[in-house]
């Protein structure tokens, strides 16, 4: 019988980022990665945290390697943490801010990447406005360069999600069994999607998403998250509350009436936080909008771990860069031998 339909397309989409023997060679998404692999990332990051507290912070894992920061979308914060992470791994780092050209973007993108590959780059850290951009580069453009996804459209931001996992693990003694709520603009959030997959895989008891119907994506249950429209109900018995940044554009797109109404319904105040467990922690991927999604008293309060998240970011990025480089090298050398 003809075996035409989906024969290749239904395969596990996360396979692209793994070597033949199941190690990381790119880091594109948390979806489909095993609990063992996610835990290995967290353990490796933990080990780097101790090196970060030393006077000499560098380790030589990426010595002689060239890492290129390819940011097709601006982001000073994320780019800086990747830059620091690469430097602390002793890599050479090149920062490229590439405004997207208006015409034949695909072609421009490919030409740019091939040129960089020809300069013997070993790793691209990619941020791009299109969902799937990092996937596309890893699969179709430069598969022999390790690709680290630093955020693609609404799809994934896996290093942010992993630093969030590390934060939860360090502050809540593990992720298994925890109830986690993610609040706000889930629809446009690559961070939320990556968090949901990582939390489910690492054994969170429940992942809740809280927001108005306009900002919760259709069929979000299929990803393993439980939707709530009411903030207080959604926060009940939570161990972890993750607030997302609200972009101003949402008001113009008829997704929300006003910042004021959003804050009234979903802004994290001390009163609302009281619905969660008393020892619940509050997280935010930043940058925060005080008075829009979170009030200052909470952001700066005792339950907030927002600044800790930032300091773990470098360790997590060092971990995935080191692991992906090692996986990519072993894959390339085994292909050369074959």
């Amino acid at each position: 019988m003809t075996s035409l339909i989906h024969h290749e397309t239904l395969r596990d989409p996360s396979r692209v980022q793994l070597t033949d023997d199941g190690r990381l060679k790119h880091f594109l998404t948390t979806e489909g990665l095993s609990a063992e692999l996610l835990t290995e990332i967290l353990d490796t990051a933990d080990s780097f945290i101790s090196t970060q507290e030393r006077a000499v912070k560098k380790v030589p894992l990426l010595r002689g390697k060239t890492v290129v920061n390819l940011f097709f979308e601006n982001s000073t914060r994320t780019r800086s943490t990747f830059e620091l992470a690469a430097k602390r791994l002793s890599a050479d780092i090149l920062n490229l801010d590439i405004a997207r050209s208006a015409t034949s973007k695909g072609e421009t993108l490919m030409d740019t990447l091939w040129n960089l590959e020809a300069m013997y780059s070993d790793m691209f850290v990619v941020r791009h406005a299109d969902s799937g951009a990092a996937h596309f580069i890893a699969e179709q453009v430069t598969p022999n360069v390790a690709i680290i996804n630093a955020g693609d459209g609404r799809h994934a931001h896996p290093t942010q999600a992993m630093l969030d996992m590390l934060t939860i693990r360090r502050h809540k003694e593990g992720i298994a069994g925890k109830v986690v709520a993610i609040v706000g603009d889930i629809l446009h959030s690559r961070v939320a999607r990556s968090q949901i997959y990582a939390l489910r895989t690492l054994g969170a008891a429940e992942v809740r998403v809280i927001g108005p119907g306009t900002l919760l994506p259709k069929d979000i249950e299929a990803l393993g998250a439980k939707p709530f429209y009411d903030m207080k109900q959604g926060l009940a018995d939570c161990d972890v509350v993750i607030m997302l940044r609200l972009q101003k554009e949402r008001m113009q797109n008829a997704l929300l009436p006003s910042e004021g109404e959003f804050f009234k319904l979903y802004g994290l105040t001390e009163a609302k936080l009281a619905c969660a467990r008393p020892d619940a922690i509050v997280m935010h991927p930043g940058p925060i909008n005080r008075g829009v999604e979170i009030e200052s008293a909470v952001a700066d309060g005792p339950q907030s771990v927002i600044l800790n998240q930032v300091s773990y970011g470098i360790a997590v990025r060092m971990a995935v860069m080191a692991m992906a480089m090692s996986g990519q090298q072993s894959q390339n050398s085994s292909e050369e031998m074959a």
Partner: protein
Amino acid sequence: MLQIRNVRLIDPAQHRDDITDILVDNGRIHSTGDAGSGLVISESRDGNGLWLLPGLIDLGGHLPEPGYTQKGTIESETRAARSGGFTHICSLPDTSPVADTSAVIKLILEKAASAAQVHVLPLAALTQGLAGEQLASMVTLSEAGAVAMSNARHIIRDSYVLRRLMEYAATYDIPVFLSANDAALAAGGCMHEGPVSTRLGLPGIPATAETVSLAKILLLAEQTGARLHISQVSCGRSVLMLRQAREQGLNITADTPLANLLYTHDAILGYRSLYNVQPPLRTEEDRQALLAAVESGELAISSNHRPHEIAAKKAPFAEARPGMSQYDCFLPLAMTLVHRGELSLNALIRALTVLPASVLRLQHGLSSGQAFNACLFNPETEQTISASDLYSQGHNHPAIGASLRGRVEEVFVSQV
């Protein structure tokens, strides 16, 4: 006189499916059955094990000429269509320049006369420049040779314009082909809105982008009495709405692209830009509803053929150009639906011959006296498709690398 002996003749127009001989004289069918005596047979062929079908008719494919010859030419794409079993194709008007003047229609017809491998039936633009604002000169365009008016998938936002163009076309009994798509609801989307778009983080196109627009079109059709054909239906709900409209006496036809019968949004997993098509691939429930409507004769099947050069598809999903090359091996590809038991052979052939012929009011079939536009098909030959087998310049074809059962042996295109 050409004779084909012992061939299985399948013609849903005559409710015929039997093994017979057929005689063709000067491009017209002389007779079927026993040839009798006294006829001079110059060429006789053994049709044993083969099927003879009326040539397939496409209600809408993109011929990239004029304007986009990097994607294909009238010659390359009609050659592909012929190899896929087609004898007639309706060419969509979104060429460059747009087919909104008689000069462009004539250009297409002249080019077709010298280079095309099948009958090219141009669809002219409904509105000038496909902009959805001013009516195109429908009567002049019809006289120049356009078989119907279409706005391709360019959206007519203004309900007033939609009403007036239907009224105007109805005055002259000019057929109007419309795609149902609401600009505001579809805005920014690049695939069906549902669990897969949520998972991939791709902006979605809700089913209501089609159904809201279709509701408006159906109400205006009722008011204006336009001779309407709905192109490229993709939602199960649309099938229901069309059925209700017909039950209320509206004379309306519709088609669905083959891709929407073959695939669902699951095909996009892994960001496969090949499956970035318009209308978008939708859910399994939608696909089943479309199949049922083809089975019952409510929907014709169109190709929605859209060849692209490699660079147009090699981009992150949302930036890849939508569309799939479909003409090459079209019939073997469509036959997979029959092999999988999802569609009866009769319904498939009817949806590709009888139904489109009635939309276009074409005389088409395998009865005596008709022009010989037919497809000789070997149902058993297995073939593995490689890019080098394709006639189309567009290599954005889903069958590349696949093994297909059945092969078009020859397509007869009448000169009359």
